[in-house]
């Protein structure tokens, strides 16, 4: 069997929420907050 007969869904990187959003080019408030008109 190939050394690691596995498929790694994270590609070996433990991405946090903000890393995922940054990689997608999102510029959300504090990384994952969608601000509303009354926002901070």
């Amino acid at each position, binding site marked *: 069997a190939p050394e690691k007969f596995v498929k790694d869904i994270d590609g070996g990187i433990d991405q946090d929420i903000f890393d995922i959003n940054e990689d997608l080019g999102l510029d959300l408030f504090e990384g*994952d907050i969608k601000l509303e008109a009354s926002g901070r």
Partner: protein
Amino acid sequence: NSIIGDNYRWPHTIPYVLEDSLEMNAKGVILNAFERYRLKTCIDFKPWSGEENYISVFKGSGCWSSVGNIHAGKQELSIGTNCDRIATVQHEFLHALGFWHEQSRADRDDYITIVWDRILSGKEHNFNIYNDSVSDSLNVPYDYTSVMHYSKTAFQNGTESTIITKISDFEDVIGQRMDFSDYDLLKLNQLYSCTSSLSFMDSCDFELENICGMIQSSQDSADWQRLSQVLSGPENDHSNMGQCKDSGFFMHFNTSTGNGGVTAMLESRVLYPKRGFQCVEFYLYNSGSGNGQLNVYTREYTAGHQDGVLTLQREIRDIPTGSWQLYYVTLQVTEKFRVVFEGVGGPGASSGGLSIDDINLSETRCPHHIWHIQNFTQLLGGQTTVYSPPFYSSKGYAFQINLDLTSPTNVGLYFHLISGANDDQLQWPCPWQQATMTLLDQNPDIRQRMSNQRSITTDPKMTDDNGSYLWDRPSKVGVEAFFPNGTQFSRGRGYGTSVFITQERLKSREFLKGDDVYILLTVEDISHLNSTAAVPGPVPTTSTVHNACSEVECQNGGICTLQEGRAECKCPAGEDWWYMGKRCEKRGSTKDTIVIAVSSTVTVFAVMLIITLISVYCTRRKYRKKASAKTAAMNLENQHAF
């Protein structure tokens, strides 16, 4: 760290829609996240049925949410690609419930240092402080363990930490994405004035002399004793494992005194179920001869049964001796009840007995399988890959878990389908089975655990690099492997993550306890989640929603929806039952239908038979009359004839 303003609050039961755009695995993970809210808080979730405001969970770009209830009607929350982790969902829903990130608290400079020149340029605004005019930390101390805290590497422009904790021990704690921390729950339960949770029932570590209100039964020949040590074992209880002097108690049933057959029953206090299904979890230690037995009953107080009806739920035999073992028992009780633990001494002499500790009872689903890994420290050092025993899912698929300890920093976890006894009868490629793998935080109280959980779902269309279906039959696409006893089998490709948890985090909390680690496994069919969501029409204005659905009370879990402005009840249905009627007030089932069909057939048959008998009788009587009349005439004739 909550947003100030009651207008930002949701009702305790939040209406939601899981949009079709969501990935299947994400849908299952979101429903699992709801179960964590139901166990540890008073927040519940229900499918949207026309309420004015609801949360629409969809697959947008990335993982994000608004903060608080913004009264938008349809309030979006995105669980996009790679966001299908339970703690990510918990994090985003905490935003929706009104929480900011922990490190933006007004008092954060007392606890962390922001290293501004290590932040990506233009991203400095993500590290602002917010004063207590817009956010309220609810009189709860700063929480490095919050699921809402950035990690030390957030928005870094290189490899150095952008956040340094003033207490260095927390440097690698911040940014945990496992579960709610204790302070997360304290804040949430305070913000929503929670007094109870939907699914928690009881937790008992026997540290208090009142043993959680449990009682000794009178229907037995011995009693359980509250001890902190037994000569023949255990040396320590399970809750504290001997860490704390003058504490660490468990319940012990001494089988060495009586001859075989001695029994001792320990009963829980009376409990009141709400959901109709429960899971009992407890640790058991057998220090006696191998044949001690533990029976788990329920004593259900139904109408007309003053003393309750005792029902055997599980017999536990062949209990391994010499170490604490974790057990789960599934219950389905709808009336008030007690859980009863009956220790039974085995025949023949026995040196010790049975001990029980850390009982937890909740209205949740028990995990389907337990992978108990002993002598874990040695494995960890071995930098090896460990395979679990084979298990079968409820649908009959054979599977195995692979724990990858080869990395010095991270622990990997993978799910493999393997060849099994049912393969010829199963559907291939394996469709929409969700495997949930949980590293158990063995805290005695289920409400304080931060277990680390990941789920994967078998997508039957997923292909491998070589074009074959990844979830096809292992004997077709797998590789040859051998069980420890030499039996050969086929193992499909593993599917999971090499970064399930860091070794450091695994050594924290109570994942590793008594050198034992538990991985809990559930594999369930989630193909029903493929259905079209209750696609909300245009956001109904308050008036239509108010006039229509708010006046309609759908019963038995029916959902009121607007059809052309009219309120209609969509009734729930299962495999062989359904509700019907305008308000789903009537229950039907295939069994009833069959009974009705059979009884009506029998009735019709009986009526036909009666009619036939009557008509035969009348006919015969009529002809008999005619015959007798003819005979009489004949006689008369004959009289004259001779």
